[in-house]
């Protein structure tokens, strides 16, 4: 079942450092939203509120219309896939075992579901299922991490810079794999990135965050044509300049 995600006026701080200063964001069921911002903008904190890895000091987190706190963190997390920048694969487990982690945690191991998940991210279960993470390339590792996140059939995916550590060509291929897999599953997705172009490519809508606040929300076209703040304007300008540098003079 696809889940809608919503955050209402979230406030959180780590000690004296404010991470979220009144943030509201919603991702409709089946939608794909990217959060763009610099390090320290609060984007990872926001993401982690949805699977209760962070409990915000104030505000409401709604999953499928109900408060995230109304069910156990473990239940919730098993319904929401998660991929982090460095994959976080268990180094001592094979690819197949890694992909089966959530199913096993739920007490219903399922080899067929593991194989389907690997297929979906473009990896051969037969060729790679028995390998260990260190025998894979960086791109393969991120695909395995995605397969692990989707193997138990979650209603939403939280992706924390999943392409951040990849070289440019691999990055493009893995993005394609992610986009394809999400379309096939129709699952809600919230992606974090600091790269506006990547956000535009993967998501329907973009949320720009800065210093714990939302600067603007909208499609790439809206951000480009009517930036709400100087920061958004500068962000768009810099991304366009980079793209233009590649065009023939």
């Amino acid at each position, binding site marked *: 079942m696809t889940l809608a995600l919503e955050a209402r006026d979230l406030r959180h701080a780590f000690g004296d450092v404010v991470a979220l200063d009144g943030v509201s964001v919603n991702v409709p069921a089946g939608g794909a939203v990217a959060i763009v911002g610099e390090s320290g903008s609060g984007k990872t904190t926001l993401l982690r509120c949805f*699977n209760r890895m962070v409990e915000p000091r104030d505000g409401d987190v709604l999953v499928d219309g109900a408060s995230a706190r109304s069910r156990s963190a473990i239940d919730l997390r098993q319904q929401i896939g998660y991929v*982090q920048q460095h994959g976080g694969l*268990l180094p*001592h487990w094979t690819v197949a075992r890694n992909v089966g*982690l959530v199913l096993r945690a739920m007490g219903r191991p399922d080899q067929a579901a593991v194989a389907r998940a690997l297929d979906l991210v473009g990896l051969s279960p037969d060729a790679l299922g028995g390998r260990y993470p*260190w025998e894979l*390339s960086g791109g*393969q590792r991120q695909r395995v991490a995605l397969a692990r996140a989707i193997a138990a059939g979650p209603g939403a995916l*939280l992706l924390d810079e999943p392409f951040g550590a990849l070289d440019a060509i*691999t990055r493009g291929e893995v993005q394609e794999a992610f986009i394809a897999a999400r379309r096939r599953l129709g699952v809600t997705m919230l992606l974090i990135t600091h790269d506006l172009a990547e956000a535009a490519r993967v998501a329907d809508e973009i949320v720009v965050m800065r210093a714990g606040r939302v600067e603007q929300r909208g499609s790439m076209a809206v951000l480009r044509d009517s930036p709400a703040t100087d920061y958004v304007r500068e962000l768009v300008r810099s991304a366009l300049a980079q793209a233009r540098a590649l065009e023939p003079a």
Partner: protein
Amino acid sequence: MTSRFDRHPLARWWPLLLLLGATAPTALHAQSGRPVVVASKPFGESYLLAEMFAQTLESRGIAVTRRAGLGATEVAFSALRSSAIDVYPEYTGTGLIAILRDTLPDSLARDAGAVYAHVARAFQERYDARWLPPLGFENTYAIAVRRETAERHGLRTLTDLARASGQLAAGFTADFIGRPDGLPGLERAYGGNGGMRFRSTSPLSPALKYQALASGSVDVIDGYSTDGLIARYDLVTLVDDRRFFPPYEAAALVSPRLANERPDAIAALTLLSGRLGVERMRMLNRRVEVEREDVSNVARDALRDILATDSATIGARAEETAASGVVDFLRARRAAVARQTLRHLLLVIAALSAAIVVAVPLGLALERARRAAEGTIGVLGAVETIPSIALLAFMIPLFGIGVVPALVALWLYALYPIARGTYSGVRDADPDAVEAAEALGTTPAQRLLWVRLPLAAPVIMAGVRTAAVITVGAATLAAFIGAGGLGEPIVEGLSLADTRLILSGAIPAAMLALLVDRLLAVVERLIMPAHLRAPHSRGPSSAT
């Protein structure tokens, strides 16, 4: 068919619990029908007398357990008082001054009969322990110097020694330096006219003092008047002209349990009373200390003479080993070495397993409560700095002597490396993997079993291996409190200055340490996480 119990986590530990149960209570409390526990203090004459007690009892069909070489007077007596041991050779003067801490009027204090009577009555009243009639010789402290020193300084008496003491270096046993009837009393008794003030005073091991004196490292030592080595090194013993040292009549000191419940054993032991003259004792000591004869053979020969009527009931001589080299000596002692090695190994396995059972969960708990972690681990680390012999001594008031206090002490030593390894291993386990597992909805128990413990296994195992090697080493000292093991020949060898005997414990102990470490290395390989076990390189094998 597997029962519920088989799958219980504790099930795997049952063999160990049984082992603990079987080896632990070498009976701290009275229990009729158990073997008579014969003990000694760690010096040659005490070993010899205890062996004579043991063989005498055995010749009367009484089963005996031997606990030779218990730490010192305090260890031996506190064990006897609680009936953890039943009999050991003691000296009336030691009983008077070191145990009772009584002072008698001078007229009585110099009278051997009066001292015996006082000590026997006082022990009966205060401790319910019994002194059997004296064996027939005195073994008092004998302050000894080299003949050359005696001639150069004109030393004949302790008064002469006090006069010359400023030019002489003394080497005394730690026991003598600390006892009221040792150096402190001696200095007081001969304190006039500048007094007994040596140029220097060093503590010396009983095993080494005669060699130190003979080689000129020190000029004055404390010996015992019956020591066989006094004649060997041609030493001069100085006359106690102020009659400071009280009479030290040797006798069997008997536990309350034995005194009250085993008249047969008391009757057997009393056969030796009055039968050992000082000349005979000096000769027997010489055979043990100078000629390196086996203690049990010397005891057997002595008993043949003393208990002539039933020599047949005294066992056959052990194979004579006095003249052979270390290898032959080890071969001749192989049965004893095997028994002591097995005992040693059991001590190590029991202590180490108990430490793993406690320290691994403790390390895990500390990782959850990091605020308390460094402090707690620091306390365990501080235990590590307590010298083994001191830690063993602390155990005696709590657990008596024997296997239990030794196990507790070894267990304490093993906790630190294992708890430290578990704590830091789990704390530092691949944080990305641990976080991903948490964010994907695993329970804390699943994360522990699937991720953290497997990833921490190499660090935990390193801690276990360290603990194992420490335990094998520390267990040699457990012999001081009667736990047996390979420390037994080491302690006895040190007391008798017998290098071969020391090596017969030290070599197997060293080999055992290596073996245990190797074995655990194999275990470590077996539980090593797959990604560390694999022989391949860790780099990516191909591009996407």
